[in-house]
């Protein structure tokens, strides 16, 4: 069976190529969780790789890889998952859309080089929507592990989110009103990191912060460049 062979592949050239590839991308190899052959970590992000060696039967390979996709989706051993094969052969692989839609990526190992044939989409952690399963087992949902979230906690988060949305709506209305009053249509917004502001006070505060940067504060070039246009135009 292909599956049995897969588990023996962790010391193969296929695995070595994958290890080198992820090491080059700055990942560190970690003990693979159940369900993948090799796994890597960068910060909190884990990538799991299932190594597959083709058998003689293309039908059996296709069926096996499809079943692996479903299994990986079900078990989600890591946040990002790949299936690695030695060559891309359409007969032996499920259609590409099955990879894309499942979010499981496909790596091709060609000699010592590795190519991402289909990039993986990071999977979200499983959130339990019902406690019935865990309750049946006589455990609270939290005790199952970090991947499960307490329903009470979810309710609290949703409530907080709603309150936040309300606050943002109110603030937005106030901004529109103040903007209309001021008649200044050019009041701008800023960074993606949350420096959204057009209220005068807040804008001034952020501006002060920006202009306090060591390379701006007291920079004599501001005066030179500022007067630069007038001087040059007179030339």
């Amino acid at each position, binding site marked *: 069976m292909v599956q049995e062979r897969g588990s023996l592949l962790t010391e193969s050239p296929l695995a070595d190529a994958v290890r080198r590839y992820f090491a080059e991308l700055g990942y560190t190899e970690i003990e693979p969780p159940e369900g993948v052959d090799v796994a890597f970590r960068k910060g909190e992000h884990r990538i799991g790789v299932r190594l597959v060696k083709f058998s003689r039967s293309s039908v059996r390979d296709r069926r096996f890889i499809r079943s692996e996709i479903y299994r990986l989706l079900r078990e989600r051993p890591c946040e990002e998952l790949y299936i690695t094969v030695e060559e891309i052969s359409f007969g032996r692989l499920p259609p*590409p859309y099955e990879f894309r839609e499942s979010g499981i990526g496909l790596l091709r190992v060609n000699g010592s080089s590795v*190519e991402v044939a*289909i990039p993986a989409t990071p999977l979200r952690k499983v959130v339990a929507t019902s406690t019935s399963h865990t309750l049946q087992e006589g455990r609270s949902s939290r005790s199952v592990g970090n991947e499960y979230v307490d329903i009470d906690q979810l309710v609290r988060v949703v409530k907080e989110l709603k309150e936040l949305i309300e606050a943002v709506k109110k603030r937005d209305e106030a901004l529109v009103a103040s903007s209309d009053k001021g008649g200044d249509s*050019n009041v701008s917004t800023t960074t993606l990191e949350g420096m959204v502001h057009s209220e005068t006070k807040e804008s001034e505060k952020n501006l002060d912060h920006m202009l306090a940067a060591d*390379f701006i504060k007291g920079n*004599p070039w501001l005066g030179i460049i500022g007067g630069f*246009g007038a001087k040059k135009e007179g030339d």
Partner: protein
Amino acid sequence: MGGAALDPRRALAAYGEDYGTRYFKYGPLVEQRPRVVESVGLFLEESHLLKMFGIEKQLVVGEDVKRFLGARSALARSVVYPLTDGEVRRDDERAWQVLAELTRRGFDQFKGLKESKDSFDGFYVTAALSAIAPEYMREELLKIHTKIDRELGLVKAFTVIPQPLAVAIAEKEISCVVVESGHGNTQITPIHTYPIREAVVALYRGGAEADAIAAEVLKDLGYGDLASDEMAVRKFKEEAGLIPLDLNEALKKAKENPERLRCKVRLSTLTEIDLEDKGWYRFLIGEVVFNPAHEMFESFRKRGVLSIRDARLGEETVEGTLPLEEALLRSIRKTPTTLHDALLNRIILSGGNFQWKVPESLKDVAASAPLKVKHLLGKRLGSGVNVEVRLTQDPQFSVWKGCVVWSLALPENYLWNEKRGEGWFKRGVHY
């Protein structure tokens, strides 16, 4: 003009771009630091297989390149580093495509601004190019930014300044000499409220030459397979390289006591390089930017490892191997005599190529870049001359900082002048 007189809208829309040979640094002032991406692109060969698997892109840039790298043999024809010695050839279409994509991708990351607020009508963008970049590079960048504005609506106005000027601005120095040494070249630019263009001296050598020497050293040490691994070479260079205060003296001491210079460089868990009794090689890596004409580099030149081209500046040809102190003096001599002393007193070194470690135990033979330059000038001019040399406070990002200050302060009505290559190239006026 103090900070209080600055237009808040302009402060929020100031954006800088530093087109370096190795890295492209970009971003708005509000982020206080630029985003950095490797200046590289990969052309994916048209493949039915990739298409079948939903990969339609033909060009990927920056860090995405690593995701698509295939066999090493394919790299040479598919990977494009758009800038060579800080320049892009006019007819190198693929390089321009990569540069355009890097620039576009930079703005793409900030398109949320426009979507979130109707009143935001684009950035005031200042790009920095090498002081000796040819005129067509400015023209191409104007075209690229015009196209990006049509696509994303994020470039309200665009202008270009020389990199050394940006450094002087970031350092708040009005009269100084900026020596900017990046991966591809070293530019010496005297500045007195504006770069003195006639006095610019450029040398086509920089980090790339130090990399080349480091790769040869690896080969000589028996690690030829690593010499083609760019990351390994760079790491080895950074860990092992030293600037000798005086190369002859340093080599003499190193050969007398090789154990002092011995070091082990760990490139990965599996690979460790031991220099053993070849520790003296470390000085060659640091020296090459300062004086590649030294006889110690003769064998490298013969092997074709060091082939530094000469720079053509107007009527004059500057030899690529001209010692750095000679190049500095040649540049300063072209400025008015009254400025000479002031300029010698404010020499600013900038760029990643001047960042070298000086181990405490080797302080008698190794030096920092400012100390080395001061030593070379002292030797050349005599010890009585007052020379001050310092590094920029933030060598990697000082060019970007200068760009955003320029974006912040350049008056709105100072429009693009093609002859001078200055002023705002503006939406609604020029495109």
